[in-house]
């Protein structure tokens, strides 16, 4: 999923950013609400994780603005405030869930998975095409009882393809979807990522499922006989 993570304290932001990327999400991590506001306008996210106490604009008012703009993606609030009134305030502002600091990373990941299931993008913990299955929680690809483990980045790419099967996807589209805001992918980054994914897919004899459309981009199309 594509996540926006807003937390003003880098000491808390970095580990969460790292672990969320590692489990296969694309995370835009920012430390101030203004940048977050701008990003929300620019992009569509599957999930927002907001800290309550931000300088200038609080996470709650950010959430409120997001909902007022008619956006429906789930919002998870992180905060050190733990009274009932605080929880009610956050939920009434449009948050879907609520975690009190100190945040347990294992629980956070579970809640992110749970909220992801509620996202309009969600089609199950397993994405499939023909007899190829990608298990999103374990990042494993399965075909004919053979399994292979993918890295976070590889599974993001495969997930992106699986959600748009048979579509030609341009290099820019893939870049925009998979690279976090503020990072500048190298010119051949997409190509090398696709190459790595194909190597992984050799183990399940599906490396040729991702076609290269020269001058345009790539397309995921399983060969007819495997369907």
């Amino acid at each position, binding site marked *: 999923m594509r996540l926006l993570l807003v937390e003003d304290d880098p*000491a808390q932001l970095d*580990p969460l950013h*790292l672990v969320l990327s*590692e489990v296969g999400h694309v995370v835009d991590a920012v430390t101030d609400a203004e940048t977050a506001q701008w990003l929300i306008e620019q992009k569509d996210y599957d999930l927002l994780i907001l800290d309550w106490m931000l300088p200038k604009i609080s996470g709650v008012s950010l959430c409120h603005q997001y909902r007022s703009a008619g956006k429906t993606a789930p919002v998870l609030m992180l905060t050190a405030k733990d009274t009932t009134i605080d929880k009610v305030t956050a939920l009434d502002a449009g948050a879907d869930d609520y975690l009190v600091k100190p945040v347990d990373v294992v629980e956070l990941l579970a809640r992110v998975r749970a909220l992801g299931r509620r996202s309009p993008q969600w089609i199950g913990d397993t994405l499939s095409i023909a007899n190829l299955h990608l298990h999103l929680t374990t990042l494993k690809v399965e075909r004919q009882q053979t399994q292979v483990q993918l890295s976070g980045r590889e599974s993001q790419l495969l997930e992106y393809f699986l959600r748009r099967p048979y579509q030609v996807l341009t290099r820019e589209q893939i870049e925009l979807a998979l690279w976090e805001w503020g990072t500048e992918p190298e010119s051949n980054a997409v190509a090398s990522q696709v190459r790595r994914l194909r190597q992984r897919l050799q183990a399940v004899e599906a490396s040729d499922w991702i076609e290269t459309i020269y001058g345009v981009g790539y397309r995921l199309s399983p060969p007819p006989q495997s369907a």
Partner: protein
Amino acid sequence: MFHRSRRNLARWFTWSMGSILVSFASAVYCIEVQDQLTSFDQALLDKIQVMAASVEYRYHRGNWELNLEHVPLLGSNSLPLDSNLVYARWYNERGQLVQFVGAFPSEQLEEQPTFQTIRLSEESSELLRQVTFPVTHHQILIGYLQVAISLSPVQEAIAQMRLFLSVGVPVALGAITLTGWYLGGRAMYPIRNAYDHLQRFTANASHELRSPLSAILSNAQVGLILPMGDGQIQRDRLSQIVKTAKEMSQLVDQLLFLSRSTEYLSPEVLKQFDFGVWLENLAVDYAPKLEAQQLQLQTQFPLIPVLICADPDLLRQAIVNLLDNACKYTPAGGQVCLRLSTSVRFATLEIADNGIGIPPGDLPHIFERFYRVDSARNPETGGFGLGLSIVDQIVKVHRGQIRVSSTVNRGTTFTLEFPLL
């Protein structure tokens, strides 16, 4: 919670004060009744003694003769003694009725106490006080004089008093209840203030402690969850944990300092010293830190000794806190001034900088715990918002005063006053 306590206080106050009032009123009532009766009986006794004195008993022609003619009321040629005598009777020495005036009595005198309260008739509420008085002549009993007087004046006086008490005591009880309620409110007010203050403080403290805890926990967990990859990343994560833990311990120290009851300083930590000399030493120690920030330190100390009595460690902490703030909020090339002056009773220390200043809206709140001027809240400079409340507390414990004046972009001046010896 406070309402319940206030109610309880008012209730206890009413109970205790009310009991005291009621017992006092009852005691006064009893004494008054006793008093009235005693004086009444005394008057009655006087009257009957006058009557007894007018009984004539003479030896006449070999016989003792009794003459009741001159006895007031009983006798025919007597002067009326008192109008409120209800009846008078004379019994001979064997207790047989001889002569009477008023209500019809029994023939034979029964054995009865000297003073007796009797009802005039079964249905009337009027009481009579009757006295039975043996009359003697040279130690020889010659008969009994029995007289009764209406008790109504005493009854009326007592009834009036009862009325006054039965109205006055409930009114006083009501007043006591209201007073108790009011006093309870007065007593609760500072407690409630302290409680609210503590609530706010606790909420803030827990918030401030949870953030670094969260950072430590998530860094450590991420280190455990993720495969051992780049050694540098792992080292960065560990150093992040160390840094956060240090910040946290600093915060815990500050919180402990603030929560300790420092109402007064124990005499063993108080020392007398020359404030000027002491400040010069402090300035020398602190100078490198200012130089590192490219700030100039200016000092102005009087030549005469300025003797104060203080806990040097606490005072040092307060002044260093203020200097740290001056460092944080003054851009490079700025100036920090330490000026000490004396008046008749106070040593006045000014710590001034020409830094970014404090917005006027924030000025009244800067000594509050956990208050941070929002623009100052950034990771590079952000403290916990406890530094100035610690300074405030230290100054107050030394019976001193602290004032602040500030102009945005012009600088801030803190003025501390300590009583001279």
